[in-house]
């Protein structure tokens, strides 16, 4: 799947996200009266919502390393980008933010729920384990000034734009 992805990425225009999926397709064959199942790998592409050339900054990676992959919003504002991730039950000290080669990596761990002795699960839907999400940063982000806060299970990361990247109005004398 990984090699299929990198091949697909190379062939796609910049600003398009790709997801590789294993799909089962079912067709009803009326001659044999049977449902025929075929499995195949498919490439789903969807445009990332960039307004123009300058805005093609982020390319997010949706391939999760484990079952727990926090949902992420990326919003662009006049002077900054805001990343919001949902990480309920994750402690501040268990989250790591790292910027290397213009790639922001948000990783962390949600500890396993300890089941007390003589207890049993009636329902266990909350997934645990490590998670990693990566975001490619544009050069117009001031990596030195990235800040983050974690409140009520919501991780908010603010990435300020470089001075030069901020919109300016030039008055004509």
């Amino acid at each position, binding site marked *: 799947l990984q090699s299929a992805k990198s091949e697909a990425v190379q062939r796609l225009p910049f600003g398009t996200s790709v997801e590789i999926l294993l799909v089962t397709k079912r067709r009803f064959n009326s001659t044999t009266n049977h449902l025929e199942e075929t499995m195949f790998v498919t490439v789903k592409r969807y445009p990332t*919502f960039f307004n123009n050339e300058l805005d093609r900054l982020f390319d997010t990676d949706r391939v999760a390393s484990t079952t727990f992959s926090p949902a*992420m919003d990326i919003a662009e504002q006049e002077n900054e980008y805001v990343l919001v991730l949902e*990480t309920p039950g994750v402690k501040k000290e268990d989250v790591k933010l790292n910027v290397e080669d213009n790639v922001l990596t948000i990783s962390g761990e949600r500890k396993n729920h300890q089941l*007390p002795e003589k207890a049993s699960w009636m329902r266990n839907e909350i997934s645990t384990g490590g998670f990693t999400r990566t975001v490619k940063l544009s050069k117009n982000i001031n990596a030195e000034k990235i800040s983050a806060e974690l409140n*009520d299970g919501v991780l908010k990361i603010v990435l300020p734009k470089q001075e030069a990247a901020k919109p300016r109005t030039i008055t004509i004398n």
Partner: protein
Amino acid sequence: MQKEINRMFDTFWRGGTLADRSFYEGEFSPAVDIAEEDDQCLVKVELPGVAKDDVKITMEGNLLTISGEKKEQKETKKSNYHSLERSYGSFSRSFTLPTTVQGDKVGAEYKDGVLTINLPKAEEAKRKQIEVKVH
């Protein structure tokens, strides 16, 4: 007829894949853990970014209902979204507990986006040790 069925399946599979944007924007429904212990039931609900006042917990007999609303934060005023994976909306989840609960002793706490509810079992519902004499 065959075409019709094929079309139906096609639509179904297209609609159900992860790449579909509506999948990410779907109604919010929190994940829940329920552990049954000797003297209590412990419930955990994932509610990231939900205000305490927007959650309602009710017990009706053995039926526990957790409902509320996850509101979209309005702080991001003039934003251009490049990715939208979080979902919002009202939710309601109900569970039938295996035993009766002391309704007046139910406790709840909201921390790090997780709601924890302690439901102490009623005295008669606690596991009793029965001694059987063998003659």
